[in-house]
Structures are given as structure tokens and as C-alpha cells.
């Protein structure tokens, strides 16, 4: 299992310049990818333009968008062009784009797209995207419903899980593999997982606060998600082991504290495994 690092683009109040410094530092570290989330109505950096910039300051790591709320992005052609541009700037085999509808109605209201049309829009975009993006871009589908798995088997390379304890990941990953084999796709889907960490003195509460804020739209579940924050090397080791056993191909650990020391701390925690 490969381990990637999340970019600090969705931690409200991140200092300017942190993201690119973070990317340069991670390029040297033990991580195989740099990933970010997409969100419209939140104090965060825009996903595609950020990845283009990160492509310019890195050479080795894979770049991943987990996941892009595609129906808010207009035509498949415009989106495919952006994706191809990032892939070209990054160099061969370095770009993973996850697509989903996202769970947030406010993003759709702000984007003037009807929430009720999200599934149909993504289906239409996907049909064109697979033609337009071309080979060399890894395409994932995110989402928890049956529709997401149907999309994955139709046109994508794999599945991106939304995060959660290894048991929840395992059952979602099993479903994705079952869908894949039921549809007669050869091999198995690439499966990405994610988690959140905060390491170092005083970081636990800051990190939980950041998660509660980011996930406040999930209502009663924000508390549970915040409680799942990984705050020690042991917790990270156990989490990685659980994901590995459940058949995760790439696990991305996202930061919740906007501080460069988090990159080094995570690197050390991973080496202690």
C-alpha cells in the first residue's frame, strides 16, 4: 500500500504560501502522492489551479484530486481540458482525478446547479470525459451510493473512499471490488482511502476543531469524524495496517493543522512503523 499526504488547502485560515512549501517538503519525504479535496462554499483553495501550481514545484509525487465535484464544473470538454493540462504539466503518469457529486447542497446552490440533477450531470460528463481525458490520467469515482459504483465500472479505473475506520473502508472496498467483478471488468479496481491526522503537542484539539468545521454539514456525524482523528504514531500505524489488510492501494493522510512541522512529524511517524 502506498501512502500519500494531503495538502493543507481546506484548513480554514492557512497562511498564504503554505501549500507550495508543503508540496516541496513532501516531494522529499516518504509520500507517494499529494492530494486535495474540492469544495466551493468554504475557505479553501481551488482544486485544479492548486494542482497545476503543485505540478510546477514537484517532479516525483503523484497529484490527486479527491474528489472533484464535477457537476459544478460545467462542460466535460472544459473539465477534460483542465485535467489534460494538469496531466501534461505534471508529466506522464502523475495525475489522478477523482470525480463525484459531493454531498453538499449549498455548493450546488452557490454554483447555480440544481442539486437534483447532480447524478445525471455527472453521468453525462463522464461519458465524454473518458474519451477526452485520454490515457495516462487515472480516473476514480467517489461516493457512497449504488450509482457511484455503477459509474466506476462503466468508465473509471477505481474508487475513492470517503474516509472512516478500517472496517467501514473494508466493506466499501469489498463493494467496489464486487461491482467490478460483477461487471466483468478484468483485474481489480484501484482503491484509494483517506484519513486525517494531527501530530505534536497541542495539535489534537486544533485538528478536531478543523474537522468539526469542515464536516459541520454532516450534522451529528461531525463529532464522530473528529473523534476518528489520528493523533499518535501508534494510531497512524494501526490505521495504515487496517487499510492495508482491507486491500487499500493508496491511503492519503490529510492534515488538520496548518503547520509545516506536520509534514515532518507524519514522515517520522510513518518511518517508525
Amino acid at each position: 500500500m502506498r501512502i500519500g499526504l494531503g495538502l493543507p488547502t481546506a484548513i480554514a485560515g492557512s497562511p498564504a504560501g503554505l501549500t507550495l512549501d508543503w508540496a516541496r517538503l513532501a516531494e522529499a519525504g516518504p509520500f507517494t502522492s499529494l492530494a486535495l479535496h474540492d469544495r466551493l462554499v468554504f475557505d479553501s483553495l481551488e482544486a485544479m489551479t492548486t494542482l497545476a501550481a503543485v505540478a510546477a514545484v514537484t517532479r516525483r509525487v503523484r497529484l490527486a484530486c479527491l474528489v472533484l465535484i464535477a457537476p459544478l464544473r460545467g462542460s466535460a470538454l472544459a473539465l477534460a481540458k483542465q485535467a489534460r493540462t494538469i496531466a501534461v504539466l505534471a508529466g506522464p503518469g502523475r495525475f489522478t482525478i477523482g470525480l463525484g457529486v459531493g454531498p453538499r447542497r449549498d455548493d450546488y446552490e452557490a454554483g447555480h446547479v440544481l442539486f437534483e440533477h447532480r447524478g445525471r450531470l455527472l453521468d453525462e460528463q463522464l461519458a465524454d470525459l473518458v474519451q477526452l481525458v485520454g490515457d495516462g490520467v487515472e480516473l476514480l469515482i467517489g461516493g457512497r451510493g449504488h450509482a457511484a459504483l455503477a459509474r466506476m465500472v462503466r468508465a473509471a479505473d477505481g474508487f475513492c473512499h470517503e474516509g472512516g475506520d478500517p472496517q467501514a473502508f473494508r466493506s466499501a472496498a469489498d463493494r467496489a471490488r464486487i461491482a467490478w467483478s460483477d461487471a466483468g471488468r478484468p483485474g481489480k479496481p484501484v482503491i484509494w482511502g483517506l484519513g486525517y491526522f494531527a501530530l505534536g503537542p497541542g495539535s489534537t484539539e486544533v485538528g478536531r476543531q478543523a474537522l468539526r468545521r469542515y464536516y459541520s454539514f454532516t450534522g451529528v456525524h461531525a463529532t464522530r469524524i473528529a473523534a476518528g482523528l489520528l493523533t499518535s504514531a501508534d494510531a497512524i500505524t494501526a490505521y495504515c495496517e487496517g487499510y492495508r489488510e482491507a486491500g487499500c492501494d493508496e491511503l492519503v493522510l490529510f492534515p488538520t493543522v496548518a503547520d509545516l512541522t506536520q509534514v515532518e512529524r507524519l514522515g517520522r511517524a510513518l518511518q517508525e512503523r
Partner: protein
Amino acid sequence: MRIVCIGGGPGGLYFSILAKRANPAHKVTVYERNRPHDTFGFGVVFSDATMDFLARQDQGTYRDLMKRVTRWDSFTVIHRGRVNSVRGIGFSAIERRQLLLLLQQQARDLGVELLFQHEVTDPNAHLTADLVIGSDGVNSVVRSALAQHLRPHIEVGPTHFSWLGTDRPFDSLTFFFEANEHGRFGAHVYPFAPDRATFIVETDAETYRRAGAARFTEADTTAYCERLFTSQLGGHRLLSNRSQWQRFRTVRCASWHHENVVLIGDAAHTAHFSVGSGTKMAMEDALALSRALERSPGDVPGALIAFEQDRRPRVNHIQAMARTSFDWWSTFRHYVDWPPAKFGFHFITRSQFRWDTLVGRDASYLRSVEAAAGIDVRSRVMAVEPAGGDRSELVRLASSHPLTLTRLLPVSDQGRITPDDGRLDDYADLACRFRLGAQLSHAGPRGACLPRRFGTDRPLPAAEGWPLLAASAVRYTPASALPQPMNRSDMEHVREDFAEAARRAACLGFRFLQLQFGHGYLLGTFISPLTNRRRDQYGGGIGNRMRFPLEVLQAARAEFPGELAVAISATDWQVGGLTETDMLAAARLLKDHGADFVTAMGGQTTSQSKPPYGRCFQMHLAGKIQNHAAVPAIAAGGITDLDDAKTVVLSGRAERCLLDSLHHT
């Protein structure tokens, strides 16, 4: 804010408490038609998972409840006097009256206005409040008043039940099955105190009619059930409390809210009591609603949208689980004559439990199931050659399984899915060395596509494709080529192609043949009502829709002496698709025309089908084919390992199963 709760059951009371706690300035009124001490029903059950959820969300209420509940840790099925007990399935229970008194007390302490014996007949009179909660249960007047906006759908179940209680002590959640001269009965026993239990008796319509229970008074019902369950009650009584016979009503609504009015609990959604989730869902609704309101201060309609969005997936999940469980209770007459161990295991695996989820709870129970069955499940597992795998992979599978099926092989060039499809003759050297089965198909409208490493149903460039056939001119995806509806001459060709392929398979030494009549391929387009729009004798009712597939089956059967299975999409996993009655009729017809087995696949009949993928996600379909239509079934779909195969075979749902070619490492 002025908040009105119509209905003072657990959901309404709990919400009033949470609202008042969130903001003591809210003026909250609860209208309840009964008196404070009145209550109907006996006990309320919470699973360990529900209690854990409550512990995380509301420590105070959790602690108050924990002081009053009794906890049990096992689950018992008693059938024909034999006991099947499973440990490690924990739940807590409380007398419903005690729960209500506890919540009433808390509400009163917080300053909620509780108005008892106050029946609301016209909810419109309360609409001036800032927020109106319809927590008035399954017969909700709030729901009726807003029916135009909420669009409720109420499904009346086929069984009849009576809600009783007993003073016989029970130490476990217990299910009894009993027969008398009128038919068969089941009892759900949910203890809620050391010497008190809810005792629900349930039966099918036929037994109910023969017993003449429609004319029973409450005393008649009690006496009848006491006689029926004499030995199980061991001299104890049954208690009644408005215990008329009823049919369960499953409530679903297109929307749970309109402007400033929202439904929670049974008013919005019900789930058959056999999954024990009524009070749990009502309390979870109350929690989710209060959180949604806290997050959107001053925006009630916005909060109600967020509430519904949050709760829908969870409620849908429970309703789906309840549907499977209720389905079992509606059809258990098919199983009551089974040996007790098999019956018990079938019952326990009816909705959420499987072999792998029980192993950690009670391995010794599972050993007893295995011993009683005396079946080596390994001998019932069939492997399938993985798509895109190479020769050595097939040899490896064939060496370690009693039978291994090839991938789908086209009966003709026109029947190919992709240009890369294999041929029967590719297996010429292997078919005589190993126990192999051939899977024959004609792609129909799913033909002429790119190899599946590029995805599914992505059409080849037009110049590289070939003409497609189907029952009717229906494209598989919007991008697919339009197939030609088959004429008589096409049918004769296809039938001959299948016969020729079957002959060739026998000749090459294949031991087994499976004809693919599902998944939206050619023969499947005749069977599914979604893809067959013909007006001739090959379209219309299931008898007509099966006509051509049966002609093909007979032609292949005549050429193949070994075992022959036909795979169908036993459901379309789509609204408007194949009904259960049609599925059973199709299975019987296939058996009558020479199929030794019917393989229960599902979905893929159109690109819109949405199978609920998961482990063993289609085993109930095999179970129905095997037990309701008496046709030997092969289960397929999400059977990932030997544990899943045990779930399917030892529960009597299928003779064999097709192992999913799922790789973990």
C-alpha cells in the same frame, strides 16, 4: 422560537427535550392525546449499536437510560422444540411506559409544556408556530393533512400479527415457531424486564383466515395464543393491551417536511418490528433534527432540508433491511418443515447476519450448523475464470475447485461483446484435463464494445463494430448503437448457434454448461419487461417473453448431455423491472424445459440498473428460486469466499454458488 410537537411518544418528547436544552428561550409545547401513564405496546428494544450512538451524542440521556434498561446478549430460535442459540448479539430493553415517564420528567424539568388528553385533529390550527413537529406515529394526522406535499405511500403487509405481552421470564431475544390445525405461527419475544416480555404473534393470511381470527375479541386472541404456545409459556399468561390483530403498515414519504412542518419517527417512516428499530429511528430523527436546527439558526426550512438529507440514507438502509426481514416473516411457511438447525440458520441470515459476521460472535453455534448439515461446502463452490486473466490463472482455479466456469464465450462472431472475446476452441486442451464448465452467451445490444479494460459498454468506433440484435430496438446506453429487433430468421440462426456451441462444448469435454440469459445480453432482453417491447408472441406476459429463450434452451439441451444451468437476471434492480412472480415463473419454465439449475444473477439488464453490491447481495433471489419455485438454484453475486458460500449453502438458499473472482492481494 415557538415549537409545537404533535404527538408525545419517544420521538416527540425527546425532540422537545433537545430543543429546550439547545435554547431555553424556545417555547416548546407537546400535544398528546393519551394520559401520561397510558401506553400501548410493552417494551422497547435498543441494539448495542444504538446505545453506542446515543452515548456519543447525548451522554445525559444515555446514562439515564442505562440505569433503567436490562441487557441481553443472545438470540434464540426455538423450532419444533429444538433450541438454536447465538451469543454475542447484544441489545438493551426498557418498558415503554418507563421510557415515556423518564422523557416526560426530563421535558417537564426543562420547562416543556406537556398537554395530555389533547387530541390534535386539525394540524393547520398550529401552523402559526415557527416549527411544527409531526411526531404522531404511524396514523399521523399531520402527514394526512399535508399529504399533497409529503406524498406518503403506505404499504400494507401480507401477514397478520397481534401485539401481546407475557410474564414468563426470558433470558434472551427469542423466536418460537409453532403449528396447529389452522396453519403456522411465529412468535417474536422481546424481554424488557426480568419477568416481562413483549410477545408478538405473527401468521400468514391463510392461517389467519382458517383460525377465524378476524372475529376474535381481545380475550379470544389471548386464549387462542396461550393454547398455541402452551409449552413455551410454561404455565405463564399472555397479557393483552389493545391487542387486536393488525397488518403491518410500512410508511414511506416522498418528503418529510413542508415549509415549517416536519415529520419524525413512525409518522415519516416505519420498518417491520422484526428489526426492532421504531423507537431508535424516532430518537435518532430527534437528534438529527435538533442538530440541523442548531446549525441553521433562523432558517427553519433550510434546517429541515439538511435534516432530511442527513437522515434519508440511514432510514433507507433500515427500511431495506426491514423489507428483507419482513419478507422472511411473510414466507416462513416455506421453511417451517425444515430441520431445526437449517431453519434457524436460514432465519438468522435473513437480513443482516452472515457467516463472517457471526464468526466473531459465536463460533460454536456455527460449528453446530455445519455439523447438522453434514455438507462439505467446498464441493458446492464453482469458480469463474477471471476476465483478463491468463491461462495459468485458469489452471490454478481448475486445480483447486470441483468445477470452474470459463468467462463468457460468444456462440457466434455477431454475439461477441468485444473483439477480444475468447472461443470455445481456446479451451480444447484444458476441457478434457480439468473439470470445466462453458459459459455461452450472445451479447445482443451489449456487443461491439471496447475491451473491458477500458470500461464497460463503451462502443467501438462505428467502422470497427458490427450489427447488433435485441428483442426490441432499445439502446443499452445512450452512446450504444441501436440494435435491430430480431425477426424469425434471426431467431433461427441464434438458436442454431447455441445448439452448435453446446454440441461443440460436449465434444471438447466440458462437464457443465451455463447459458447466459441475463445481464442485458441477447436472451436477457426478451425476459426483462424493460427491454422487451414486442407485440408478437415473444412479448407481453412472462410466458411470451420466455418463449424464445426456452427455444434456445431446448436446442442446447438436446446437444449437451452434462449438467446445464441457465443464468438469469432474477431482478432488474430497477423500478418497473421483472417482478418476483415472473422470476419464479421463469425459473419453473426453465426447469420444465430441461435446465438442471437456474443461476440467480441480477441487474445489468439496462445501464440504469443499480444493484446494491455487497457480500451475498443476491442470495435471497437464489433462495426464492430454490425454495418457493422448487428449482435447484445457483447463487451468484458478491460470494467472495468460503464463508459466504457457507452462508448461502448451509441456509438452504442454493445448491451451489459461483465464487466472485475478487482478489484481495
